[in-house]
């Protein structure tokens, strides 16, 4: 059960040699897939899932930060005085 306080990580998952991004989508673990790139997935996962992915070598894992860090960074950038602005 995903508790509200559970730490979740935003990760880039790349397929190990011989596998594809499509194979990653069939991993029987809870992946909150945010983005699909040609060679990787961006997903939010719990620490438990992360450990399983790494332990079983189901994917090459790059930790981009916790979801809390992502929210904090993104919301800071999204404040009305942000310089991001219009394209």
């Amino acid at each position, binding site marked *: *059960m*995903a508790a*509200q306080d559970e730490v979740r990580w935003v990760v880039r998952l790349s397929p190990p040699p011989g596998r594809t991004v499509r194979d990653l989508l069939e*991993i029987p673990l809870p992946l909150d897939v945010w983005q699909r790139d040609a060679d990787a997935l961006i997903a*939010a996962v719990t620490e438990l899932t992360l450990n399983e992915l790494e332990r079983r070598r189901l994917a090459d894992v790059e930790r981009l930060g916790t979801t809390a860090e992502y*929210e904090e960074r*993104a919301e800071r950038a999204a404040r009305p005085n*942000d310089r*991001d602005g219009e*394209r």
Partner: protein
Amino acid sequence: MNLIARITSPGPQSPLSEVLRVPLGVDVWEVKPDYMILRATEAQLERLSRMGYQVEQLEDVAQHLSAFATADAAAGYHSAASLEEELRHLAEARPDVAELREIGRSIEGRPILALRIGDRHGGVPKILFMGCHHAREWIAVEVPFLLAKEMVERADEPPIASWLSSGEVWVAPMVNPDGHEHSRVEQRLWRKNRRRNQDGTFGVDPNRNYGYMWGILNLPTSSHVPSDETYVGPRAFSEPETQAVRDLVACELFAGVITYHSYSQLILYPWGYTDRPVPDARDRELMVGLAIEMQGLIRGVHSSVYTPQQSSELYPTAGDTTDWTYGTYGIPSFTIELRPRTVQEGGFILPASQIQPTWEENRPAAFRFIEHLISAPIG
């Protein structure tokens, strides 16, 4: 309860830097030379206090996010309540062309609203635009809302006037109001609705709960595990949110559907449940052709690239909205994933300053869709 607190050091015997090394799992928001702001539970703050730190509770997270949400709403993002208010204003300003309908009620009893726009009842064809099946995708409320607003405010101008004299445009900007409010107040990255599941977890993914090929997959992107983000629910159309859409579509028999999501800048067409293309060549060519047209129209505004592709090329989904609308009714159906393209550009948390340009680039695509369906021979 999650609290936001300021932590200060009483002296050199308890340096602030040590807080970052304590394995408490607190969420550090700010680190300054003489204080730290963090989010923590009461138990975690109690532990810090017993360690000798000075703990000042500032506010609880819900209040903070609510204040933030208020600031964001002022900058452009709606709450369920402010959306209802604005839709009602539109309907009251132009009762001759706009009518606010409650198409259902959410799990927590919030109205699920749709604005019918057209100057005669029963006009055909009818087109449906929806937004915010997924709670955290705030821009997916704003684009259909701005479509509704423009259609009403410019109802007397060509080409909108001609469309509304022969057909109807329906806009339901927030299909999942409970989830959206939870995202605004409690968990910004919440995705699902607020159904309490049998195992004590919360949420069914409304975009996996529709009745076409419902539940045939069991994958991370279409899951039978209640705690998962893409939980399909206990059965097809188990959720009042999807029931509301189902009943509306069954009643109005729309000629086409666009449902907005974020993010990734994609124009998706059926199928999601299989890699196989839609078997009807004419339907397939129509949807692919429209998707490519919409891509070009979007790019012509601010040079944003939205990629057309079959939905399953993103990832497999069983029970999604457009598989159902196309699979059941045979109507052209698109899921448009809005800005941004990547998580580095903000992902689900898009600056409010990008609402207007996102709408501007999607306007010609939405208008082309309406024009195509209103001009097409019926039947």
